[in-house]
């Protein structure tokens, strides 16, 4: 994503997950907001441009993939639901907003050219000769400046921290002089043509948001169900293992009848699930003890019951 001028920040670093997009867009529409919304997500960025309360463009960029219009709005709804992002809202002047729109949605003529390696004077003459509508972006890793053109004539200069177009080229020249400075050249349609466009009229944001919300709720429910099922399976497997071990212990002390005895007594308390309830464990062990008295010595019986108790307390609720 381009480094964009911040203009006049209204809100910064608002957690995206807290935002109700339809309500927010409605507020901006009613407030005739001019400027842009910058959403930053872990793997994507979205920019929404407003002009006098009209949503004139939406851009969602994920790596090298760029989506605009409805797709961008749908993607934005998804990303907000997914959580983890933040929102910055910047108010800008009308001309600057138009220029930025051109910057993001215009045709890229040159990209990332080293300022020192190109003939700036020749480039500007070419812009003028071609009556370019668009934008020159001069930037380093830290700073950026924009020069907006209309019909090949510069409208003004923009750099970080300013709200409106500046008439002085000093700042832009400074940035151009910095080591590693680069330049992008972008052309666009005329501003008047772009102003006819309002995404809020074309896209039913409420419905889009509602369907995304419903889908995410369904996904979350499904995840919860999956999680619960997984948990049940894990618990079942753990209890099955515990039951097998109890049978092994009983078998070691009582012979083959030990296994049957454990099965019978577990059945009597409602199956292996009951090993998670203290009172059922007491009943189970009492039943085992009662029958085992007829099969083994008191010393071994005590030892067996203690081993079983320890196995159950260590593993039934783990």
């Amino acid at each position: 994503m381009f480094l964009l001028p911040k203009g006049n920040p209204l809100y910064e670093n608002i957690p995206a997950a807290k935002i109700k997009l339809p309500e927010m867009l409605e507020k901006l529409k009613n407030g005739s907001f001019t400027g842009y919304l910058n959403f930053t997500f872990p793997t994507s960025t979205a920019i929404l441009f407003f002009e006098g309360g009209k949503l004139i463009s939406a851009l969602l960029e994920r790596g090298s993939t760029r989506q605009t219009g409805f797709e961008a709005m749908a993607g934005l709804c998804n990303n907000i639901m997914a959580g983890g992002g933040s929102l910055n809202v910047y108010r800008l002047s009308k001309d600057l907003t138009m220029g930025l729109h051109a910057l993001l949605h215009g045709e890229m003529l040159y990209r990332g050219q080293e300022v020192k390696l190109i003939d700036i004077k020749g480039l500007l003459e070419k812009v003028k000769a071609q009556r370019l509508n668009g934008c020159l972006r001069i930037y380093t890793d830290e700073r950026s400046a924009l020069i907006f053109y209309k019909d090949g004539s510069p409208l003004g200069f923009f750099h970080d921290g300013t709200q409106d177009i500046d008439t002085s080229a000093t700042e832009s020249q400074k940035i151009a002089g910095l080591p590693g400075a680069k330049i992008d050249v972008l052309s666009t349609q005329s501003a008047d043509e772009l102003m006819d466009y309002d995404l809020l009229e074309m896209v039913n944001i409420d419905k889009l948001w509602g369907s995304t919300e419903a889908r995410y709720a369904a996904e979350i429910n499904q995840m919860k169900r999956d999680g619960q099922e997984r948990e049940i399976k894990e618990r079942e497997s753990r209890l099955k293992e515990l039951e097998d071990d109890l049978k092994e212990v009983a078998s070691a002390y009582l012979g083959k009848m030990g296994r049957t005895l454990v099965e019978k007594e577990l059945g009597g308390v409602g199956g292996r699930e009951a090993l998670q309830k203290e009172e059922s464990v007491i009943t189970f062990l009492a039943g085992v003890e009662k029958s085992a008295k007829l099969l083994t010595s008191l010393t071994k019986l005590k030892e067996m019951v203690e081993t079983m108790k320890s196995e159950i307390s260590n593993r039934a609720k783990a």
Partner: protein
Amino acid sequence: MDDIGNLIGIIQVVFWLLAGGMSFYFSIGNARVWTSISVGFFLIFLSQFYLLAPWADYTRLEAVHYIIGTVAIMVMTHGFQEYYVFSRTLDIGGSKAAVYLGTLGVICVSSVFIFINPEPTYTVLRNIRMIENASWVFLAVINIDLIRKIYVQIRDSVISKGFVAFGIVFFFIFLWKGSELYLQVFCWDNDWHIFATNNGIADTVDLYSDRIAFSLLVNQIGGMLSALSVGGTFIYLYRLLR
């Protein structure tokens, strides 16, 4: 010969006293199934006790002793049946008190039956004794089979060898009671001999004196070995289950 027989009988009673005491003690601290079995063995002592009692000539009491002997094997068989059911289903039901009271009840009812009827003559006593011996012989065989089945079920448990010992006990009991029944069935027993002599009835004792002597020997040795093996078995069980 009779004196030697009486002496051996008294020695047997002493052995049964030890075995009965051991089995009764064993029944106190153990499960209900053992109660039936050990009470049964204890009753053998009571059934033999009349030989020492000063009222041995009182026929009604002698009859009661024989009935106690019959009840003894029935209670024991009940115990082994319960253990067999346990070994197949692992179900244990009932209480120890029910065993004690039930046994006492049967003995009391039997005693009442004896006392409300005419005083038993020697032939009646002999009949009761034959019934006792027949019960012992057939139930001993049944118990040996039950013990075999129980052993198959619990052969890898600590207690299994105790059941082998019980099998040996019932083998001796089979010899002890079986030999006596044999003599009674062919009218070669002492009671019949007295009865025949008093009534001028000819018997065949002289014709079969060898087999009669052998049967008496088997009866006396079988009786002693039964008492010894019962005592030994309960001591062995006590050690196994300690």
